[in-house]
């Protein structure tokens, strides 16, 4: 195959065989000699001072090898940013949510560890707690962190243009409030961690993660160990969706226990712990004010969003910025004011999620439809009028180098039969659309890039060493497919070593859907470099210039005389004898403005490129029960270029499930104070096979000038679009707007009753 022939093919993913046979190992599957089992004692209180912890009885229990409390944690605090270091991963003085870690035990088996937990006495001084972010912001609300007044964790203000004047000039102004409840990742694999600490001071960690390097750096800081001694190992990860990015108490506590006991320690969370004590998604209250011209173009836009952040910062500055970012990444804004507040409450910690902010994104899409209706403009048309295009610059300064938003909207409407259906379906059936743009990566400083190495063996095979992380997206397969394409090899002839913080070069991790763009580019660079080295060496052997040579199926040959060729293995051997072994090097750092900062300086190039998408969804509503069924979805996504179309489709289909059915209609946590009422797989309603619509994925290719083979990403826009499409389709079906997510049957029915009290 020539370059560009293997990419674009529907290939079987390299990780799928091991996963189909059960060989693939996940953290809980691992055992090490002398391994101990750990369990954590958790706070039953939402807010309490820890007065005393007596672990003496637990320590005396036969089989118990180590007990740790906040005293062992030396008071170090974790935060993703320097200015958000507010979480003691094992608190010594205060607990701030139900389920927070208080003490932990490592024992010979899990039963002993659990028994030991029951022998630990904790004295608490229970404090008043607050669970609603709007209440938490009021004067006199319980203060969750001493240094944070009114519990406002992060405030991101952004203002561009003359917003107030623009509102005055607008032909039409609409104001709406949208909101949602808490929801969560619910990855199929519960949280687990295994830590091995040896007598030379090496700390090895296995845990489901989206970036071994980020975890390693955090643990190195927290444990005050050199980075080279903290080794986060490669492990299969059962889904992430943003929820495996940060550092969690689990890995810190397991490390403390392993160091204290001098033995490997494994800790596997229950499903309940995975729900309450790792991460959840934010709930939000969104006030949206939009002013447009008579022909529906944005003139003035204002958004205030309040996020319930839970007890600690986590990725707070990012989370609170995303509503603004997705907004400016989708539409041409001129005069815009944004105020994002992330507020502390006595609830579990919230992080970034694939379906982050159904309220703001659903709200943006629904309000746009409301405006379109008032102006008698088709919803597709109003989107096209405001949609960003290639070459434009977003309102805070990011230039768009490739943009398929218009094409995505056009293709989704065309394929779905939008024109024939919109407004014309019988009552109770409806069709709606959603569209969005999405950053491919974000500024992460030195962590924002990726590097890869490719080393050739004397038999002509090679090993690709990449920091790329795969949580199920297909990233491992993607880098191999790219390298194989460049090298004219079969994918099975390239072995991949990846996601090991000790062995593989720094990589941004599977964050912000950047893997294809960044890690893929680095892998391509390594392959291109190796190929050049090979052709250079072979040029001597074949008596031709490197430019006259090609590499394919393990042979280097002269392009116009293919019978003049040499076996690749022979070239590699010559390289070794010549003391110029073939090692390809590649790296990529996205072209972002490194001065851009979430809170202090939200301007400048935010991401290297942006992806875009649009979906059209059809719903059917049972008007007596209020139950909504999504029946058909047409999703068009500008992924730049589809390295493996099957993987791109899979991402879109997954987005429809989590965003379009789960987040839009089903998923939410219910609470009594700080206690989660439905921390179970039975009561937290993840969509099932029978709940899913027919999905028609459409791949839009804009061939990004920076991306590897023009590729960008495929992971996120689908979810973001589905909230809008479902909300709008329900309006098309029933004539009611439901502004609170998830759109559960009781809300639908209530809206119908309010519209027609007679019914």
């Amino acid at each position, binding site marked *: 195959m020539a370059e560009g022939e293997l990419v674009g093919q529907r290939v*079987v993913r390299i990780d*799928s065989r091991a996963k*189909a046979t059960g060989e693939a190992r996940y953290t809980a599957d691992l055992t090490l000699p002398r391994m101990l089992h750990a369990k954590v004692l958790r706070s039953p209180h939402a807010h309490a001072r820890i007065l005393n912890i007596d672990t003496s009885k637990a320590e005396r229990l036969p089989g118990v090898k180590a007990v740790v409390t906040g005293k062992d944690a030396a008071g170090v605090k974790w935060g993703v940013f320097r200015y958000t270091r507010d979480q003691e991963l094992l608190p010594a003085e205060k607990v701030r949510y139900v389920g927070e870690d208080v003490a932990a035990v490592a024992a010979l088996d899990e039963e002993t560890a659990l028994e030991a937990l029951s022998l630990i006495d904790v004295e608490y001084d229970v404090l008043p707690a607050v669970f609603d972010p709007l209440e938490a912001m009021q004067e006199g609300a319980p203060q969750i962190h001493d240094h944070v007044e009114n519990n406002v964790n992060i405030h991101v203000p952004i203002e561009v243009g003359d917003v107030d004047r623009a509102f005055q000039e607008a032909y039409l102004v609409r104001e709406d409030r949208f909101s949602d409840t808490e929801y969560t*990742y619910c990855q*199929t694999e519960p949280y687990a961690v295994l830590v091995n600490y040896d007598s030379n001071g090496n700390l090895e960690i296995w845990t489901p993660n989206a970036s071994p390097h980020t975890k390693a750096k955090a643990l190195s800081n927290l444990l005050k160990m050199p980075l080279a001694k903290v080794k986060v190992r490669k492990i299969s990860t059962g889904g992430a969706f943003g929820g495996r990015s940060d550092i969690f108490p689990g890995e810190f506590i397991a490390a403390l226990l392993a160091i204290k006991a001098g033995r490997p320690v494994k800790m596997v969370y229950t*499903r309940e712990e995975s729900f309450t004590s790792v991460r959840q998604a934010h709930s939000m209250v969104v006030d949206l004010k939009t002013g447009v011209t008579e022909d529906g173009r944005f003139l003035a836009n204002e958004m205030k969003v309040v996020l319930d952040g839970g007890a600690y910062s986590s990725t707070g500055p990012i989370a609170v910025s995303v509503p603004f970012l997705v907004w400016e990444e989708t539409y041409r804004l001129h005069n815009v004011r944004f105020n994002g507040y992330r507020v502390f409450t006595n609830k579990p910690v919230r992080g970034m999620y694939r379906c982050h902010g159904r309220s703001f994104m659903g709200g943006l899409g629904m309000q746009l439809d409301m405006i379109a209706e008032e102006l008698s403009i088709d919803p597709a048309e109003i989107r096209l009028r405001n949609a960003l295009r290639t070459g434009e610059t977003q309102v805070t300064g990011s230039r768009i180098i490739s943009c398929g938003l218009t094409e995505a909207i056009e293709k989704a409407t065309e394929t779905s039969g939008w024109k024939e259906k919109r407004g014309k379906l019988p009552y109770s059936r409806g069709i709606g659309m959603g569209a969005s743009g999405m950053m491919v990566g974000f500024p992460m400083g030195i962590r924002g890039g990726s590097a890869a190495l490719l080393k050739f063996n004397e038999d002509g095979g090679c090993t690709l060493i990449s920091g790329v992380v795969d949580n199920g997206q297909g990233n491992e397969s993607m880098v191999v497919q790219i390298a194989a394409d460049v090298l004219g090899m079969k994918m099975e002839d390239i072995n991949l070593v990846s996601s090991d913080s000790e062995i593989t070069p720094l990589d941004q991790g599977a964050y912000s859907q950047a893997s294809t763009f960044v890690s893929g580019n680095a892998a391509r660079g390594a392959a291109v470099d190796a190929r050049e080295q090979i052709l250079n060496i072979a040029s001597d052997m074949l008596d031709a210039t490197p430019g006259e040579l090609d590499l394919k199926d393990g042979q280097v040959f002269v392009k116009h005389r293919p019978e003049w060729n040499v076996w690749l293995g022979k070239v590699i051997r010559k390289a070794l004898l010549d003391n110029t072994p073939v090692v390809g090097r590649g790296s990529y750092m996205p072209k972002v403005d490194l001065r851009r900062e979430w809170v202090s300086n939200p301007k400048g190039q935010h991401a290297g490129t942006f992806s875009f998408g649009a979906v059209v969804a059809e719903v059917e509503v049972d008007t007596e029960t209020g139950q909504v069924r999504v029946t058909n979805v047409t999703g068009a996504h500008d992924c730049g270029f589809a390295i493996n179309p*099957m993987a791109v489709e899979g991402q879109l289909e997954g987005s429809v499930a989590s965003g379009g059915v789960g987040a839009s209609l089903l998923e939410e946590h219910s609470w009594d104070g700080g206690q989660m009422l439905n921390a179970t*797989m039975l009561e937290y309603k993840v969509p*099932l096979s*029978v709940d899913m619509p027919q999905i028609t994925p459409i791949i839009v290719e804009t061939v990004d000038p920076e991306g590897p083979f023009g590729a960008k990403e495929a992971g996120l826009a689908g979810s973001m679009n589905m909230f809008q499409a479902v909300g709008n389709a329900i309006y098309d079906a029933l004539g009611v707007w439901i502004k609170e997510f998830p759109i559960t049957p009781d809300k639908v029915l209530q809206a119908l009753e309010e519209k027609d009290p007679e019914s």
Partner: protein
Amino acid sequence: MERQLIQLKVNGEERDVVVSPNETLVEVLRDRLELTGTKMGCGEGACGTCTVLLDGKPVRSCLTLAVEVQGQEIVTIEGLAEGAELHPVQEAFMEHGAIQCGFCSPGMILTGKALLDENPHPTEEGVRRAISGVVCRCTGYAKIVEAIMAAADAL
């Protein structure tokens, strides 16, 4: 509570194992027989990742006592392939991109196999219903349904 020696027939092999009555099948498979291909997603029967076949039928191994399945044929994901030859359902899952993170795949593949053993030509609706007790968070089920339908054609 007395531990007892039981015989389990797993993937065609007779295995002697000493267990306590309160050990569930998934614990024995994973912790004692090192068959970690069977996953545990919730331990409460609600997610289906721990599905194994018991006399050909998919069951929740987290809600099955090891002591009560003596004499029955247990098949785990490790027992599906014959040597290097994968079962057609496994092949189809790979070919059709039905595997993403892979955590639900063992339970999903075994459920698909059991369905096709019972009904070689299921409808799409029948496939959706058969796998409706296994949660997948990645794929949206589209390619899983497609793979099982394709395996039916291949069988």
